[in-house]
């Protein structure tokens, strides 16, 4: 029996994608290729709901769905190919980051002024000074468990052995020009791993408390119920066993896992002691809050985020603490949800915007250590050149494989190639099939079409029952469905869902854009050319409207929790 694959063609907008966008949807996952800052095409996976939120609601772009019937074997091959590519790209990114870290390491060694600062992830959650014992009972419990199996003195011995290993570590730049699964760890990777292992053992030995600013809480959240306390307690018991075993692990990166685990375990013990949920502050250091949206939507913006962060936190709390114990992936989501909630409360208090973040915030608060000795490295300057060459060569190799090219390798061509490979056929594809809606028709000729539908944009979903309502919904000043994010160019009329009036509206938009840009010439010194840019960009995107072509749709500052729920 055939299974279905949805081909999603997203309409254009100014800014992120004037060329439109496409995606494949299998099961509840959407796969799409995006043009990354480094010029590479990156295969991204999103839950369907998250994809719709981003494109149809935040970017106001209708999504045209063509549901194709494919045989199960084809769908299975496609799923495997997409997953494999995601994994390979993740490995590519990790490898490039490691090669860049090599460049930084050899640059620091070349400028050696006697000390080298090494980053240790998650160690800065602790008030840590080597050789200074603390009173962290959660860490001490893990230590006792480890010593019970490893023997007294094991921490001192192992820590000394790791320091000796770090001091004798041969530091060589990577000599491979291309990425490979089996490539040896880079010098910077080994240095980081050893520094993290040494620090983890020292923290295990000293049992320092967490820093005062390490934990976050939601003062408005209800206290822990007896069932939640039981779930947290069971989670802590399970964590203790796993953490005590980490120093014996064959995995070379156990140091960070132990450091973060000890910090999280301490947070759980602190939660049990306080009777409320407390988690690590996972926000990266130096993260800058973005600009607030325009004043007219600001109150609704905060209200929407307040409802969303409270709802997500309640849901994650129930998921994590509703069972016998909390799974690691559920705890990480609870931690991120509480971080977002706390950040929103801070933003409301400070009158600033809350910070943006990936779906899961990785807690990595880094401690920079300058007391860990590396072997003298007289050839650092020469090795720096070699490290730079390796990083550059790896980037060039990846650019040849996955570099974005306007017509021959873009989000459309790559998805079609994956689909064709899974299907076992390779139909000739003329260049114009690289255009999103043309490609949808091409696929409709290749596979049986089960259904076509359109997922409406946020603004298009707004009610327009009368002429006055219609007109009101077509100006940026009055449209109820338009919640300006502050990123849009200057324009007055929406033209995306009106054809006859498009040139007239476009002419008005052109005039408004030019006028605003002209005013921007005067305000340039005061607003960083923001008005100038918005005005002339607005004029530019008005030109196609004169010829009946509409690209611009405006973007939204927020969506409400009700709108999210309605799409489930």
């Amino acid at each position, binding site marked *: 029996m055939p299974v279905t694959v949805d081909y999603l063609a997203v309409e254009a907008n100014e800014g*992120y994608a004037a*060329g439109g966008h496409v995606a494949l949807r299998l099961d509840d996952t959407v796969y799409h290729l995006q*043009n990354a*800052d480094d010029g590479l095409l*990156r295969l991204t996976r999103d839950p369907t709901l998250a994809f719709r939120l981003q494109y149809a609601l935040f970017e106001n772009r209708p999504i045209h769905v063509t549901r194709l019937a494919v045989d199960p074997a084809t769908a299975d091959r496609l799923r495997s190919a997409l997953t494999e590519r995601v994994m390979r790209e993740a*490995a590519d990114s990790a490898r490039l980051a490691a090669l860049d870290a090599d460049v930084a390491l050899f640059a620091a060694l070349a400028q050696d002024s006697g000390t080298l600062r090494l980053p240790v992830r998650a160690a800065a959650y602790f008030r840590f000074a080597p050789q200074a014992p603390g009173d962290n009972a959660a860490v001490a419990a893990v230590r006792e468990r480890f010593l019970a199996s490893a023997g007294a003195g094991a921490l001192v011995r192992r820590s000394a052995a790791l320091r000796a290993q770090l001091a004798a570590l041969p530091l060589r730049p990577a000599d491979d020009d291309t990425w490979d699964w089996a490539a040896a760890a880079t010098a910077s990777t080994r240095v980081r791993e050893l520094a993290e292992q040494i620090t983890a053992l020292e923290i295990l030995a000293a049992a320092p408390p967490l820093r005062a600013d390490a934990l976050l809480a939601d003062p408005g959240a209800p206290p822990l119920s007896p069932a939640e306390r039981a779930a947290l307690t069971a989670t802590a018991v399970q964590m203790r066993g796993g953490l005590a075993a980490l120093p014996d692990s064959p995995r070379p990166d156990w140091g960070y896992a132990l450091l973060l685990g000890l910090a999280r375990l301490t947070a759980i013990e602190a939660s049990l002691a306080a009777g409320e949920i407390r988690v690590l502050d996972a926000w990266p250091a130096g993260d800058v809050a973005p600009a607030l949206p325009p004043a007219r939507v600001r109150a609704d913006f905060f209200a929407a985020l307040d409802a969303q962060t409270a709802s997500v936190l309640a849901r994650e709390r129930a998921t994590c603490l509703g069972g016998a114990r909390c799974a690691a992936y559920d705890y990480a989501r609870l931690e991120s949800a509480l971080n977002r909630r706390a950040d929103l409360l801070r933003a409301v208090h400070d009158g600033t915007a809350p910070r943006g973040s990936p779906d899961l915030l990785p807690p990595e608060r880094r401690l920079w250590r300058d007391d860990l000795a590396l072997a003298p490295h007289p050839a650092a300057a020469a090795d720096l050149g070699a490290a730079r060459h390796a990083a550059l060569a790896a980037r060039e190799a990846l650019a040849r494989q996955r570099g974005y090219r306007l017509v021959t390798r873009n989000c459309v061509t790559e998805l079609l190639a994956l689909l064709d490979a899974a299907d076992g056929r390779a139909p000739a594809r003329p260049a114009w099939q690289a*255009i999103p809606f043309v490609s949808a028709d091409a696929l409709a000729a290749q596979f049986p079409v089960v259904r076509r539908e359109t997922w409406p944009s946020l603004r298009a979903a707004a009610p327009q029952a009368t002429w006055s309502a219609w007109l009101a919904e077509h100006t940026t000043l009055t449209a109820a469905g338009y919640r300006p994010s502050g990123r849009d160019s200057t324009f007055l009329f929406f033209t995306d869902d009106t054809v006859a009036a498009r040139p007239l509206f476009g002419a008005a938009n052109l005039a408004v854009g030019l006028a605003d840009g002209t005013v921007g010439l005067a305000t340039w010194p005061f607003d960083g050319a923001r008005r100038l840019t918005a005005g002339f960009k607005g004029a530019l995107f008005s030109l196609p409207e004169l010829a009946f072509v509409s690209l611009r749709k405006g973007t939204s500052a927020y969506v409400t929790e009700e709108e999210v729920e309605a799409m489930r």
Partner: protein
Amino acid sequence: MRAIPAASLVLLLVAGCSFYDSSRSSSESSGSSSASSASSSGSSASSAARKDSYINDVAGYTEAYAKSGGQFDGFTRGLSEIAQKHGVTDWESDADTFTGIGAGLRRANVPSAQFEVWKQNLTNGDATKATAMQKGYDNATPK
């Protein structure tokens, strides 16, 4: 859309595809905080779905790695990266990790004798982990 004149297609192509939204991980715009909040709201709430997603990703990574003939040392580093994206740092304490590894090895057509070597290296004789890995191997379909 289909009535768009041919000349405008050139314009449509100018900006190419959507850009990778690095603002989801930093903060370039006011939309990013709202988008990331809504995105977390739109993620799956089911622990069972997260478990399946984790196992599938571990299996996918293992399959790709085993097919490429990479070595054990590099395997665990990459596995840590995959696990971390799911919020799992101590992946050795999670039996689901081993279920996923077993499934990935089976999908990659790793023969049972070779599978036993992987199992020994990864589980170090831990019966719970070995059972989970065997379960994943037995229940998966080779490709």
